């Protein structure tokens, strides 16, 4: 325990598992490489713990129990101070259009009155309370959290229309899935029933969501990153719950079905005919009596959806993701609008237990052909990335990898369409890009699942949420600069547990900018304990 509120957990200690269980209640897991896991006690993590019933003394006692050294007084002060703030701001029902924000300490009330950033959000009601428009609930919470003032939202969540749903007994949830669902639902008291679950790709986040749906039994809206994942959700719902096709609707470009459980995409919701016009499909949020909203791949929550999400604070809401990294740095907004992180688990732990595949990561270094060296040297930095990425020697390298894995189902993933087409033309393997129609995509994915296709070439459309259980080799021939999230999500395509180990190959042109981008891309996975071998071909 350090005075900057980081906790370093030595996983080699015999009591590491018990310690983790204890501290996870009030500290967020930051990273989990192989020897030392890092946790952080933040305001949000503390408030989350307090709202679930822990007291500041419980937290301090836990720290004293596990800390190798004396707990710094600054940390205990922070914990007591932040815990003391919880309850300073309470949000309650007022009337049909408004909520009431009660402020316990007069000095804070004065502060709010003088705060210009809150103008228009709050209206003084008396010396210690303010009126808040219902649809500003989320925005207010996000704003005050940023200023260090947590709001205890005591307004019961809207029930929404009831839904008869239960899980089939054809499968048994894993213990971490049960824990995740329990952490989300909790005891149903105010302050529970909304939040984010962070679990690795392939670990069954969908199951957690289905369990939450079954326990809540409410009309549900599910938002996904693409149409393929919409179809995957629908398949899973029909396969694992008692719902029928009549209960589940698709709301996408292909269909506009609104049913008790409706699965849609972020794209359709944020589509608008004019650049500054309204979003015609936002009405799906407002007009229906939803009781539960699920945000799949919540890290992708587009900025326009933030505003609507703020309005939907009255509903149970669940965010699912494996990688809560946003290159725009707005992770905090996700937490404050959808809800705090309720459960996460180190990737390495799940891999050890066999819940996700053991994956080996390889960085294959290739030379740039001599004829491209000068062109590369004289190119702009953006062009350098392109030249390095589309290195023609990657074709032979990919061919070699495919030859070394004759029995595996292989994905070739790339950034540049021309490069993918080149691979497609030379190898003859089928290809899916953004221009491939949804029906064709489904057909090819299905053929891949049935092992009728051994190798599939895909663009970044396959980065997220595509379930290909038997994929065991991924060859990344190019990527989006240094995106850590993309790297992690691509690895996620081959992490479904299976009988064979998985291999992730990243082809990198050495002595080019691609090397440094590759190093950055690998950061998140390295923090989860994945290490890359480096081979030069």
């Amino acid at each position, binding site marked *: 325990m350090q*005075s900057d509120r980081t906790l370093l957990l030595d996983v080699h200690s015999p009591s590491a598992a018990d310690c983790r269980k204890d501290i996870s209640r009030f500290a967020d897991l930051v990273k989990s490489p192989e020897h030392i896991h890092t946790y952080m006690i933040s305001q949000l993590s503390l408030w989350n713990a307090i709202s679930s019933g822990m007291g500041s003394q419980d937290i301090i006692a836990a720290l004293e129990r596990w800390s190798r050294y004396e707990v710094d007084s600054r940390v205990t002060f922070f914990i007591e101070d932040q815990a003391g703030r919880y309850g300073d701001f309470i949000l309650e029902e007022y009337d049909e259009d408004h909520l009431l924000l009660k402020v316990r300490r007069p000095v804070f009330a004065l502060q709010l009155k003088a705060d210009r950033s809150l103008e228009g959000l709050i209206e003084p009601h008396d010396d210690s309370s303010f009126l808040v428009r219902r649809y500003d609930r989320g925005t207010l919470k996000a704003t005050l959290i940023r200023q260090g003032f947590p709001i205890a939202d005591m307004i019961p969540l809207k029930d929404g229309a009831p839904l008869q749903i239960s899980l089939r007994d054809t499968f048994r949830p894993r213990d971490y899935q049960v824990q995740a669902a329990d952490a989300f639902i909790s005891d149903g008291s105010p302050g529970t029933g909304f939040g984010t679950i962070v679990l690795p790709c392939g670990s069954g986040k969908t199951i957690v969501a289905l369990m939450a749906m079954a326990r809540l039994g409410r009309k549900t809206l599910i938002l996904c990153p693409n149409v393929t994942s919409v179809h995957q959700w629908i398949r899973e719902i029909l396969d694992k719950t008692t719902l029928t096709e009549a209960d589940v609707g698709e709301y996408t470009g292909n269909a506009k079905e609104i049913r008790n459980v409706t699965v849609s995409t972020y794209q359709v919701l944020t589509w608008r005919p004019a650049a500054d016009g309204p979003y015609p499909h936002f009405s799906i949020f407002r007009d229906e009596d939803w009781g539960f909203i699920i945000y799949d791949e919540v890290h992708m929550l587009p900025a326009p959806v933030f505003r609507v999400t703020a309005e939907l604070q009255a509903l149970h809401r669940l965010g699912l993701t494996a990688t809560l990294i946003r290159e725009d740095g707005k992770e905090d907004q996700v937490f404050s609008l959808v809800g705090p992180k309720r459960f996460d688990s180190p990737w390495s732990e799940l891999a050890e237990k066999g819940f996700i595949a053991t994956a080996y990561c390889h960085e294959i270094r290739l030379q740039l052909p001599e004829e491209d060296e000068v062109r590369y040297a004289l190119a702009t930095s953006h062009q350098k990335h392109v030249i390095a990425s589309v290195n023609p020697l990657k074709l032979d390298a990919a061919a070699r990898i495919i030859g070394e894995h004759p029995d595996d189902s292989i994905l070739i993933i790339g950034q540049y369409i021309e490069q993918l087409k080149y691979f497609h033309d030379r190898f003859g393997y089928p290809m899916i890009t953004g221009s491939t129609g949804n029906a064709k995509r489904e057909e090819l994915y299905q053929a891949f699942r049935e092992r009728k296709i051994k190798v599939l070439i895909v663009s970044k459309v396959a980065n997220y949420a595509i379930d290909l259980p038997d994929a065991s080799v991924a060859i990344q021939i190019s990527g989006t600069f240094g995106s850590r999230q993309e790297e992690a999500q691509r690895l996620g395509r081959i992490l479904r547990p299976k009988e064979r180990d998985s291999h992730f190959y990243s082809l990198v042109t050495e002595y080019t900018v691609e090397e440094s981008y590759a*190093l950055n891309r690998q950061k998140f996975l390295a923090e989860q304990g994945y290490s890359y071998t480096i081979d030069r071909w």
Partner: protein
Amino acid sequence: MKLLFPDIGKQKDKAYLEENGDGILAAVTDDDSELLTLLAASPPSWQSLPQDRRRSFLARGLAEEDREGNAAVSPLGLRAVSYAAIFGREGCIGSYPFQFLPMMMSILASGTISEKPSSAEKYLSSALFTSRFPSIDPEKATRAAAAIMKALLYLGVAEADSDGMVYLSQDAAMRFSKLGTVDAIGYLIHPEYFDSRRRHLVEALCFLSLARGGDEGRILRFISDATGYCLADDLDALGDLFFIERDGGRLHARSLSDTGDPLFSVSSDFTISVSGKCPPMLFAYADPLSLGEHVSQWAITRQSAKTAFSLGATCQDVERMIAEAATYPVSDTVFMRLRSWYESFNSLKAARGVVLAADERSARIIDSMSTLQVHILGKLGSSIYLMDPATERMWRRMLCNEGFDMLARTKGPRFLVEDEEIRSFEENARETGLPAERGVPYDSALMERLLKEADTPLKAAYVRSGLIWREGMEAPDVSSANGLYYQEKLALITAAAAKGGKVLAEMLDGDAYIGHPQKSAEGDEAYVDIEGICRLPIARIWKVYAVDSAIVSGKVRSADGCRSDSDSQ
């Protein structure tokens, strides 16, 4: 030397002391313990002790003196010394932040700080810099960093390049990084000292590192007497460098002993978690991320690898150092990446050197000289060599020995190569050699009982002087003069003054004092001088006793003390 107790003959000294040692030691007050401690640390301080103290120590067998007047604490007396009496006994205020200096060296090595004072100050006070040290007050971190940078530039450990950016000088940085903490602090607060003064400084710092809440003045005096170095003017600088904390006249030094579980964990995300002292060259091959109270975080990056290679380390060196220090197995990814960076580093090099052009025959000879090869930085052709300018003298001598005595002086500008003198003094610094605590503590309760039982001021004087230390011991018979007989008093005082002895003066009101008998210059007045208290004319003294000079001067008893033997008259 007159022995106090008639039955302590020279032959019985050792046996007597062995038998009664614990009792004698239990009567040694904390003040006496402090003086003995100072004597043990600095024997020359014997001469500065008050004479009665010297005699008292000798009489009790706590010190030994040779014919030349040189004294030392005796084996018995060493059981009464303790440095804690001077340096304090409070708990430690925390460990020294060993990793601050390596972190600062790492930042300097990266070449991101300008030599210009204003730019350097701006950077060092920025959040970018101070946020790396969350466990340290930002202003303090800035002050410490500025002091370190200034000192390292002075020492030549850091230099400025042609762009005015500071970087580390290879050999000097390596030498500096191997210094112990006290040595390093000594160089940082006084980079300008010559060796002789530095030796005293380091010794003084070693003593200062024992401070645990002791009185600042007392500690500084002790150190000054023991080492000959006065630290008073260095306290602010030492505080800035985290060595000490000052609190209301008390001094605390941070612990220099590494008591925590050492940790050096290298993860596959290239971060290193370190607790305890930094392994060698960590500052060179890793970038500092944050310094916590217990664990610091570093990262191996391309840039930090370049720094290490620039400082002369090979990839194998770095791998070996990491592997040796690591608490847990290190992922191959880290080593593979290091090798890859090393290849890049070696793909293009720049070196300053002396070009040696040889004919074919000479080149064959040069190639065969195995001991010369280490001075060849590279070959520019089959017979053209790039020679190390730093060792020109050596390789010239070698060539001369091989028959190349016609080699002329090197043409062109001369490279200035200075040999930085950075030596360790900590290794040879004298330790206090003292135990933390006394072997036998002062038994104040026993002394109080003995004083209460002392039925005469004379006996009380012996108790206070530690010469009576157990029940049943009697004060020896001594000559005395009753107050009614002035001439007898005068004669006793005159005789005592002539011998240089002491007297016990008992007053009518019952107070009693030990002091030096003296006569006025004219000889017509006699009095007893009680050091630091008063001068008593003998006319006012009721009774006078001639006592041994081993009796400690001062007030013996107040009026409400023991019954005067004159009461029996």
